[in-house]
């Protein structure tokens, strides 16, 4: 008997969900498959089930490619170790959602009997959460398999909610949830365009770092996202929300490589003030400064290199050498000109991430900042370089600068060091944990530098140099585009983000204009269909 009910329910559901899907994802070309990052996963679960659902488990690490971890999400898969963890997390989330405490809020229907299968109710629950988790409606078969699983588990346990739990757990560990699968369909002419649901996902993860909300999914279902006006309406709505902060924090964390902090150790003997708390605070400081300037003040992104404004807490105040007599945890601070600080390049985060445990490194700092802000990676040094002279602090060369310069007289070394070192040398007024200093091994530190024909002095000179360098805002645009699409920033052509960049520069480098210009440009949802694996690429046929 219940089989007939199920068919009826499914038919209604599938019709409601599927009939209006334009060029449904059921037959498209997969153009990108991105593993959710830890933050995307956490945000998605919190938005779908509520913030009180605990997510406990280990996520597989990403890799930085072209300056962004986001690009690696498109080449990494799920290993057995990762799946084991995802599977346990899925079950733990499902247990919480179907618990007596939460089910009143999270399960939208009541079964006819709490001890019997109720296919209509479970189909309703899986249909709803399936749409949220997969970011598209479930296919009839996907739904039916879960309803059947739940019924079997309910019969085995004598409890409807136990059945729901297992059905939900199966959705939560599905490849359709763990990967953002972007599907393209033929557009006008030869090119391909993302289908409506894939557009919704790309917008949502870019703007809010989370799964599309109900309204965005509705806009996908009605194909509102297919029209320029409809798209603009949704882009404006997403950008007007305070949740844009979350999305841009995720982007800037990736671009500024703030995840590097997870593995920074400092020598506790030489730098006893360094701690995990300090590292976390330094990361937060940089994000606060950046989001404040870019979004809250709608400022010129170039000023991120020069602004005296920052936020500090007690830990940071000790390193910056400023008093901290406040009750609040975080307070705004304007550095005085004499303190030698200049925007985020002189914040503790950037200074300490790219240094050795016991010593500052002009080379590491230079290489990192060239890559992060100017999109100019430095080639790896030749294999057989003799660095001995750089190290000998007992010899006549007292400062790192003198020693580096000696090393860079070698023509092969010089080609790269003249590229990366000047930036780092101008930051030598700060030690490996970002404290200001005037001398090194008893000798005054020279912080002058010349790069690409421009001479400047110290961190403030560097900040001005970066501020005025047109490569910097172009690099921000390139990184945002690569982040949004999940591609290697080194493979991106300037024409790919030309429209967005024009909106950016026309606005005086406001982040919001860049975002809007990018999301609304024709190119953003354009896709190149993949070269098929073989004639029969459908996995179903194997």
């Amino acid at each position, binding site marked *: 008997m219940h089989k007939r009910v199920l068919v009826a329910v499914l038919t209604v559901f599938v019709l409601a969900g599927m009939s209006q899907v334009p060029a449904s994802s059921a037959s498209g070309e997969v153009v990108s498959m991105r593993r959710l990052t830890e933050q995307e996963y956490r945000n998605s679960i919190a938005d779908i089930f509520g913030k009180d659902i605990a997510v406990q488990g280990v996520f597989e690490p990403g*890799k930085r490619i072209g300056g962004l971890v986001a690009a690696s999400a498109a080449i990494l898969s799920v*290993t057995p170790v990762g799946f084991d963890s995802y599977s346990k997390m899925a079950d733990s989330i499902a247990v919480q959602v179907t618990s007596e405490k939460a089910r009143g809020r999270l399960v939208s229907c009541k079964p006819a009997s709490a001890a019997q299968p109720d296919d209509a109710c479970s189909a309703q629950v899986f249909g709803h959460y399936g749409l949220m988790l997969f970011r598209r409606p479930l296919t009839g078969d996907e739904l039916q398999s879960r309803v059947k699983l739940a019924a079997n588990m309910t019969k085995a346990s004598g409890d409807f909610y136990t059945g729901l739990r297992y059905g939900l757990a199966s959705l939560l560990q599905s490849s359709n949830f763990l990967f953002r699968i972007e599907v393209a369909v033929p557009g006008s002419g030869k090119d391909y365009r993302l289908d409506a649901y894939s557009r919704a996902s790309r917008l949502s993860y870019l703007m809010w770092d989370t799964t599309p909300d109900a309204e965005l999914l509705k806009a996908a279902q009605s194909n509102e996202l297919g029209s320029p006006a409809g798209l603009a309406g949704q882009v404006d709505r997403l950008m007007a929300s305070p949740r844009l902060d979350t999305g841009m924090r995720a982007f800037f964390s990736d671009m500024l490589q703030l995840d590097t902090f997870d593995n920074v150790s400092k020598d506790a003997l030489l730098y006893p003030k360094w701690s995990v708390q300090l590292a976390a605070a330094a990361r937060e400081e940089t994000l606060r400064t950046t989001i404040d300037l870019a979004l809250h003040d709608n400022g010129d992104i170039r000023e991120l290199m020069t602004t005296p404004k920052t936020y500090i807490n007690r830990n940071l105040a000790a390193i910056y050498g400023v008093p901290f007599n406040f009750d609040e945890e975080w307070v705004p601070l304007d550095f005085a000109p004499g303190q030698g600080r200049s925007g985020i390049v002189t914040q503790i985060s950037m200074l300490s991430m790219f240094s050795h445990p016991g010593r500052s490194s002009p080379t590491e700092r230079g290489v990192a900042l060239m890559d992060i802000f100017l999109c100019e990676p430095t080639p790896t040094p030749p294999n057989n370089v003799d660095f001995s002279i750089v190290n000998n602090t007992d010899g006549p060369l007292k400062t790192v600068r003198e020693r580096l310069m000696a090393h860079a007289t070698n023509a092969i070394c010089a080609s790269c060091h003249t590229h990366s070192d000047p930036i780092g040398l101008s930051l030598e007024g700060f030690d490996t944990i970002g404290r200001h200093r005037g001398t090194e091994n008893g000798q005054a530190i020279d912080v002058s530098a010349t790069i690409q024909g421009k001479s400047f002095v110290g961190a403030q000179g560097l900040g001005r140099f970066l501020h005025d360098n047109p490569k910097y805002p172009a690099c921000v645009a390139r990184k945002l585009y690569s982040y949004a699409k999940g591609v290697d920033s080194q493979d991106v052509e300037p024409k790919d983000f030309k429209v967005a960049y024009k909106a950016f520069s026309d606005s005086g480098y406001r982040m919001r204009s860049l975002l809007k210009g990018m999301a609304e440009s024709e190119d953003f949802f354009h896709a190149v269909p993949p070269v*098929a694996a073989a004639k029969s690429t459908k996995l179903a046929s194997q």
Partner: protein
Amino acid sequence: MKLDRRFLLRGTCQGAAAAMALPFLDCFLDTNGQALAATGERVPTRFNTFFYGLGLTKSLWVPKTAGLNYETTIQLKPLEAFKKKMNVFSGSRVMIDDNPNFQHWSGVGASATGISPSKTGLFDSKTIDQTVADVISRGSRFKSIAAACAGDPKQSYSSLGGANNLPAEASPLSLYTRLFGPGFQDPSRGDWKPDPQIMLQQSVLSVVAEDRKRVTQNFGASDKARLDQYFTSVREAEQQMAAELKRPDIEAKVTIPTAPDEMVVNSALPNMRLVLPLMARLGALAMATDQTRVFNLSISEPGSQMFVPGDPLGYHQSTHEEPLDPILAYQPRVARYNVYSMELFAAFLTELDSIPEGDGTLLDHSLVYGFTDVAFAKIHALDGIPVLLAGGASGRMKTGHHIVGDGNPVSRVGLTVQKAMGLSVDSWGGGSMETKSPYTELLA
């Protein structure tokens, strides 16, 4: 009685599932009502890897004479207690062919896969531990386990190929939880019984695995491979559950300790000296109780960031910046770091050797492949990359030898390892390092 998951799901137990709990369990009991017990199989041979960055100092580690009874060298001194239980290989070559010498990576790739890597940070094939695990891990709970003693899950040189390294457990607590947390049942206890929960979870996995048939879109080649990898991982989880339903055949005389505390895990040597023995012990216990037969332990990234507090340079910077001592003709500070690596290796072997098993120890029933990224870190030289091989592989590996590689590819050691582990393989490696010649003199 052999238990097969399909049988359980689709056979008589499927019916029993409707009535839950007790009848459920009957599937696993023999006619006398005993949990399926040991079948008397012999102790399995285990495989381990130990990775340390930045190599050793040639003049201080290579023994003067070849063969048996060589005189222990300064840098092998920490391993002296295991001299008769291990082999050392000097003079091995890494042939990079047309690829660049990727600094601190080409040697890792060559040692772990026998193939010169074509990209930095990526392995061009599955690593040796996974090749071995494919054969020896059938029936154990985890196909393999990786642990990183400097606290970074990315410090794993165990890979399915490409970018997909198997992340390492990065603290003693997380390693403990994975091995002995939920899902673990101590096989040495008398009241071992299968957990009916597992059956339910198997049904969930079955639906997830069948999603593969529901995929309707077209995938490009690389994304299809990634999706295949995902479904392979699902299948491995199914195999893990099947193993959890069966009492391990092995009789281990060990006690599983309580969970270790949270601790600082990083590249500071004093912390590593605390963390490594704990991780090694947990790995050894996991193998003794047949939770896994493959255990990979690393102490660093390839350009090791290990540092002694107070040393502003640390290990990696020292290798590049410390001058050669004009009299000694080596880098004294680097040489000390080399020795620290060997001390940590010895601490690992000590844990393996401390677990008695049948006529010997766990180490005697294991093979431990110790490898690194470079032969001479200062200039990233690869020729003469050291390989250390410990354990007797249950008598299949003769030990106590110093093998002089004489410019032979490092892959010969890897092939020897696979032969000793009982793999039916005739050649290993790629390009100039493809070899069909194991060190037959070591194979018993």
